[in-house]
């Protein structure tokens, strides 16, 4: 309305460069593709959340009353598949990584912009197959597609679901390939490897997993599909085939994929903690190496998912040992985040609350990971709610917290608007409380012996299950809030400065939102990452 505000809004950026549906669907701009991904995965987040809601409602009472056993099997299967493959895996890399990596390294775009768009279309093709699976009656293999259940006994849409995940895997592969080449070849002058922000390192480590792991998942699912359609017998015991081979191949990808669901989150948290402590991140080099170490070790631990599947004791011992090794780089990360906080000038903004939540919940998830890496304890808790609680602490308590923290942190850069800080803090708090109320009781339930994947349970478990369902409702409100106020802020939010947090990093040196080519002139980098000692100005947004 005022004349002073007009030039701010009219400034050219990637959002107002072009209008119309075609300018979005045919874009090769990494920032617009990131937003396409954002829309797609948000859609799947709510579908997966809806399945979770039905699961929690069914488990409110010991009797199987809301849904039948078969329906329940489908609910947890599709909850897992949708959340893992269509939300968590692409969440940080495909949305925030896509948006930020080129800007953070001082490039105009990813190395292969058209491949980037192609990867989104492949994602959409996989999504269509997944939606077909859901609408056509669903699938009930469990998200793991274990043979021979998936190849022999089920009559549901196994082939369609496997194809959906096969296809969507190629979208991850292409994203990983694009990131690796971009980070190797498109860094701005002076942006050496030891000056890269840890977010970039984290996505690099993730990309290694995408590139090395996802093809193995693809071939495993393809073989399951061939076995169902043409009776090839590679996992068929009657022909001497071994169902265990499927588990090996599946977890060879899917365990590293678990780290895909945490490494990018670690990158996000590193950025947030450094910014809101206004301090150089403690132990930068160790932090970067720890990310790579987790990615590499992730390929050596897969059979810890199979301790009770009849693998040899010696193999189990070795896999147990390597699983323990993962604790070392993970601990380095947690200690260095806390060391960064020490004597930092800390601001309790919304992203920082999420980062705090991440550090605490990741620590819990990681430590219970050590419990289940121990052979004896694992036998006791295998296929119980202890496992469910453990990996939700990593995936939801860790990754979703980090993803939301990152969305808040970079929202001013993405949209050019500020989100309402008060509502943001409230949502972060609700999510933290709701999450713990949902999943902490499940640790106890699992330790008491409540098995996973059943639609009814013994009455003595009810109290804790009611607590869990109550927590889930709080969590749901917590997730809906950001959805509402992000949309609200796009129109009514305060216009964001180029660097509202006083953060270091190239993405804060360009405009908010950036122009299509990110920078007017490619910067020459002469400083280390997180040079907060050189940034003295504290902007209003964090006082």
């Amino acid at each position, binding site marked *: 309305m005022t004349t002073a505000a007009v030039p701010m809004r009219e400034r050219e950026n990637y959002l107002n460069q072009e209008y119309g549906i075609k300018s979005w669907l045919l874009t090769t701009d990494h920032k617009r593709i990131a937003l396409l991904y954002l829309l797609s995965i948000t859609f799947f987040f709510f579908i997966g959340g809806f399945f979770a809601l039905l699961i929690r409602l069914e488990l409110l009472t010991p009797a199987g009353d809301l849904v039948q056993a078969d329906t329940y099997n489908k609910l947890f299967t599709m909850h897992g598949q949708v959340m893992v493959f269509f939300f968590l895996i692409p969440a940080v890399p495909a949305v925030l990584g896509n948006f930020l990596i080129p800007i953070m390294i001082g490039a105009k775009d990813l190395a292969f912009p058209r491949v980037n768009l192609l990867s989104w279309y492949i994602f959409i093709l996989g999504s269509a197959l997944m939606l077909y699976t859901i609408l056509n009656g669903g699938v009930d293999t469990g998200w793991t597609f274990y043979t021979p259940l998936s190849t022999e006994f089920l009559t549901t849409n196994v082939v369609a679901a496997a194809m959906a995940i096969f296809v969507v895997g190629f979208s991850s592969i292409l994203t990983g*390939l694009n990131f690796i080449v971009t980070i190797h*070849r*498109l860094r701005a002058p002076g942006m050496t490897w030891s000056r890269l922000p840890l977010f970039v390192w984290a996505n690099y480590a993730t990309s290694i997993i995408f590139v090395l792991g996802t093809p193995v998942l693809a071939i495993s699912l393809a073989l399951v599909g*061939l076995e169902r359609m043409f*009776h090839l017998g590679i996992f068929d015991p009657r022909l001497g085939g071994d169902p265990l081979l499927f588990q090996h*191949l599946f977890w060879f990808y899917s365990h590293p994929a678990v780290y895909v669901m945490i490494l990018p989150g670690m990158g996000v948290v590193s950025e947030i903690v450094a910014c809101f402590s206004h301090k150089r991140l403690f132990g930068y080099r160790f932090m970067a190496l720890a990310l790579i170490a987790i990615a590499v070790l992730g390929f050596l631990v897969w059979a810890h998912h199979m301790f009770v599947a009849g693998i040899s004791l010696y193999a189990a011992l070795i896999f147990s040992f390597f699983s323990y090794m993962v604790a070392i780089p993970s601990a380095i990360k947690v200690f260095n985040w806390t060391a960064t906080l020490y004597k930092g000038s800390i601001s309790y903004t919304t992203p920082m609350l999420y980062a705090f939540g991440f550090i605490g919940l990741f620590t819990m998830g990681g430590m219970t990971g050590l419990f289940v890496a121990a052979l004896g304890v694992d036998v006791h808790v295998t296929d119980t709610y202890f496992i469910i609680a453990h990996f939700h602490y990593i995936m939801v308590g860790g990754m979703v917290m980090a993803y939301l923290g990152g969305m808040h942190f970079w929202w001013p850069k993405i949209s050019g608007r500020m989100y309402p800080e008060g509502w943001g803090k409230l949502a972060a708090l609700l999510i933290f409380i709701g999450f713990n109320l949902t999943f902490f009781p499940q640790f106890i339930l699992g330790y008491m012996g409540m098995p996973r994947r059943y639609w009814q349970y013994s009455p003595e478990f009810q109290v804790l299950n009611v607590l869990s369902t109550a927590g889930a409702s709080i969590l749901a409100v917590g997730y809906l809030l950001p959805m509402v106020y992000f949309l609200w802020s796009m129109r009514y939010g305060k216009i964001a400065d180029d660097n509202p947090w006083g953060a270091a990093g190239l993405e804060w040196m360009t405009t908010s939102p950036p122009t299509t080519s990110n920078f007017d002139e490619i910067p020459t980098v002469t400083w280390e990452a997180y040079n907060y000692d050189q940034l003295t100005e504290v902007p209003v947004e964090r006082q």
Partner: protein
Amino acid sequence: MSDSSPTLAAHQPGLQHHFATMEQQTDASVMGMWVFLVTEIMFFGGMFVGYMIYRYMYYGPWLEGSQHMDFWWGTINTAVLLCSSLTMALGVRASQLGQRRMLVTFLLITILFGLGFLGIKSIEYHGHWVDGQFPGANFRFSGPNPAQVELFFSFYWAMTGFHALHVLIGIGLVTYVVYRSWKGAYGPDYHNPVENVGLYWHFVDIVWIYLYPLLYLISHKHLSG
């Protein structure tokens, strides 16, 4: 990349806006292809691992299954694919030298070899199908360990099937490059797509180099002895 002037680079045809120099673009795109080939190795790797395990467990049935391979067609096909790699390499060289007609000719020969490979492969497939060597309800085998021989054929069909699919995709890619070459898109300054498709073609060839002995040549020594 810092030593070049972007205004000069902007005049080069085929240079995309987000690269500073042609060299940077070529480096990036070749690296992209190599990373992609790594993913392909992992893709086939899953099947090779399965093959290794079962061959170790069921050597006898594997040997038996291998006797049912068509040795001569397989050998000829290996030669066909090797020749196609040669013509592909000559094509890449022609593109580097800017010889458009040579480039198109060599690529067309490569396509012919590729089609020849698929043709021979379908003759073999047809034979196996008629002889009841496709796993499932129609599988017929009257020796010992029929189940494990069937497993061998599961691997045979899956591995060569995925390989044939890759040859088919390769033919598609080469066809595209032929079209672009015909239009004069490539020359000494810009021939990167030819090189990348060449890399892919050689990769597919190398997969066959492994498949041929693993499937067709399991211990021919035992056969004669």
